[in-house]
């Protein structure tokens, strides 16, 4: 635990150093694409006149000066499968983004979409020493949270203090400066599989880049796709990616739950590929051009030509109706949404005051998904696009880039996490004192 605290702190410091230099890259390594954005920080309101983009919740102090997307390689379910291949894909994206920006970047913030995230709600309480609550008290109360046994090889990715209670007053966002006696907190802890995280870190290191932060992609796409009301009142963000579907629930501007379904758009593509006996690239093309989930009468008459290059004339000249295509896609999409539904139920989403759901991510662009989703998930479903940020190219403003833009916002001003507070050193290690005495003895 101590080591994790130290590494997260080091990453925060590195992020601060990168912001000081004014240049940071964000890297979204997904199953279907690798996106790299390069942000330049020059202080607020610098580009207001030229862009016409006003200050958006104080997020406008950066500008995107380089953006590149490339096809992902060697990834499955949002996890690294073949490290060399993934490294090449990252190099391609980073190099072309650097070329666009005209500067080399050294610090990068990345996100994890797979790695089986698991949420824990923790509680801790301490008596405060002084009259009012100080930073040190918050550090102590966070340290006082009893850690659950989250299994061998799992690492903490996020630890957000989401709620503070001082004596009998609950729901405080920031208790510092308040008078009281007993402070308790609710901590949301998100753990992921350590090896998956290590693989990504290793991959980024091999590209000569320094890691300045790691975030869950479900969390960051929630930040960028949800509007402020939804963040405050409570909403779920469903990021339908290529290999996995991320799910995060927000309440009072804090993430209170995150999970992922290991199914995504690539599975729909592979269904089409198998069902129509076409290569994967062709299936992807058919999905994006003709795909859908709600069949109507006109779809029975719309014929889709399936081209092929096997050399068999009859095999290469087949046609299917769009209704048949929808018949292949719909069960898989339903399966994904039903899995999401099950996880939302498990998280107790039904008891939330506001039950709005935002669908984002590349796979959410299937026509008709909104009505299918509202049938399965509930009535308050909308399609989400990421927030507009200064300098983002038009081609990267689609829902597929929700996580990338969210990472940019995360890089600009991250929420307080456990490691932003000084944890008190309760037991001073005796060994270091002994070592100090030894040093004095040998040197005098």
């Amino acid at each position: 635990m101590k080591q994790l605290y130290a590494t997260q702190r080091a990453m925060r410091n590195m992020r601060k150093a990168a912001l000081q230099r004014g240049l940071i890259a964000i890297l979204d390594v997904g199953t279907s694409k690798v996106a790299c954005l390069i942000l330049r920080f020059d202080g607020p309101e610098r580009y207001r006149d030229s862009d016409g983009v006003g200050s958006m919740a104080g997020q406008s102090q950066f500008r995107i000066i380089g953006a590149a997307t490339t096809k992902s390689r060697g990834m499955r379910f949002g996890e690294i499968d073949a490290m060399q291949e993934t490294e090449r894909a990252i190099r391609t994206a980073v190099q072309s983004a650097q070329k666009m920006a005209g500067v080399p970047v050294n610090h990068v913030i990345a996100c994890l979409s797979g790695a089986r995230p698991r949420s824990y709600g923790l509680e801790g309480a301490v008596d405060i020493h002084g009259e009012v609550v100080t930073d040190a008290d918050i550090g102590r109360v966070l340290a006082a949270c009893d850690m659950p046994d989250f299994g061998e090889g799992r690492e903490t990715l996020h630890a957000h203090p989401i709620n503070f209670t001082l004596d009998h007053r609950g729901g405080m966002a920031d208790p510092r400066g308040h008078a009281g006696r007993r402070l308790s907190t609710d901590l949301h802890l998100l753990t992921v599989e350590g090896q998956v995280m290590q693989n990504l870190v290793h991959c980024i290191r091999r590209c000569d880049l320094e890691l300045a932060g790691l975030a869950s992609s479900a969390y960051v796409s929630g930040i960028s796709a949800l509007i402020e009301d939804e963040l405050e009142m409570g909403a779920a963000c469903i990021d339908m990616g290529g290999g996995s579907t991320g799910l995060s629930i927000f309440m009072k501007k804090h993430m209170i739950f995150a999970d992922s379904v290991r199914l995504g758009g690539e599975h729909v593509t592979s269904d089409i590929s198998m069902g129509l006996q076409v290569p994967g690239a062709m299936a992807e093309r058919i999905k994006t051009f003709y795909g859908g989930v709600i069949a109507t009468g006109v779809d029975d008459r719309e014929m889709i030509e399936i081209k092929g290059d096997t050399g068999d004339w009859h095999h290469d000249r087949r046609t299917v109706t769009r209704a048949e295509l929808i018949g292949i896609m719909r069960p898989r999409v339903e399966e994904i949404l039903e899995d999401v539904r099950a996880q939302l139920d498990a998280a107790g989403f039904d008891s939330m005051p506001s039950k709005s759901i935002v669908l984002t991510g590349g796979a959410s662009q299937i026509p008709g998904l909104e009505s299918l989703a509202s049938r399965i998930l509930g009535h308050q479903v909308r399609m989400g696009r990421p927030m507009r940020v200064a300098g983002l190219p038009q081609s990267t403003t689609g829902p597929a880039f929700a996580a990338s833009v969210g990472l940019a916002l995360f890089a600009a001003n991250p929420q307080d996490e456990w490691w932003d507070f000084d944890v008190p050193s309760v037991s001073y290690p005796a060994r270091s004192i002994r070592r100090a005495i030894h040093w004095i003895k040998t040197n005098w």
Partner: protein
Amino acid sequence: MQQMTPRRDPAPSRWSYRYERWMLTPAYRRLFRYGPPVLVVAAIVGGVLASAERREWINDTYHSYLRQFQQRPEFMVSAMSIDGADERITEEVRASLPIDFPVSSFDLDLEGMRQTVEALNGVQKATLRVQPGGILNIEVVPRIPAAVLRQDEELRLIDAQGHFVAALGARSDRADLPLIAGDGARDQIAEALALFTAAGPLAPQILGLVRMGERRWDVILDQDRRILLPEQNAVTALERVVVMVQAQRLLERDVLVVDMRNEDRPTLRLGEGGVTEIRRINAAVAGTGR
């Protein structure tokens, strides 16, 4: 037939990726942008200048073109005109500036020539300029002699600042100018001239001023008479003498020396006749006469 060779990997290799990042570093970008051109230019220049022959050729060519430009008729000076000086000084100036016309105005050292001309004795100030039409114009302000200085048995003309103007053959050549003499007389010329001005009605009888002991003046009058002036306030003392001369006809009497050195008590030294006379009068007044 389908192509069986594998497609080229679009991803950069590790080393090309590193190279690209290295080349994007601002310092290196500047180096590669400005370094090669500067090197090439320096190499060309260095290569050309490496041989002494070429250096000499460049030098010669440069100077020949320079001469050619400077020798253009627009810049040639063909005559000298001297204004504001009499004939003698004009001759001296011409002699001091041995220029063989025509000459380019670039070759004329006007400042040096001005100093040469101003170093002449009779010249107080000179202004040189090249006039359009190729004429070197020298405007000379000559020194005006203000007094005659007798020193080491020679007569010299000096101006009001004590500068030497010219030698003088005989005192009668410039009888209009006052005569001064004695060691250090030249340094106190201003006071001497003020004394001559203050002399007024006494002027026709004054032969000259003599600096005594480098500290005070004697006025030499005709018939070997003198007025001894004090070190301080010499002009005032002389004015008192003038008043005495006018009021008591001092110089019509037999007085050899009027001593004003003690300003509280002017003293007279009488001639032989005067002394005899005053003793006779004193004796008659006292009733002790023979």
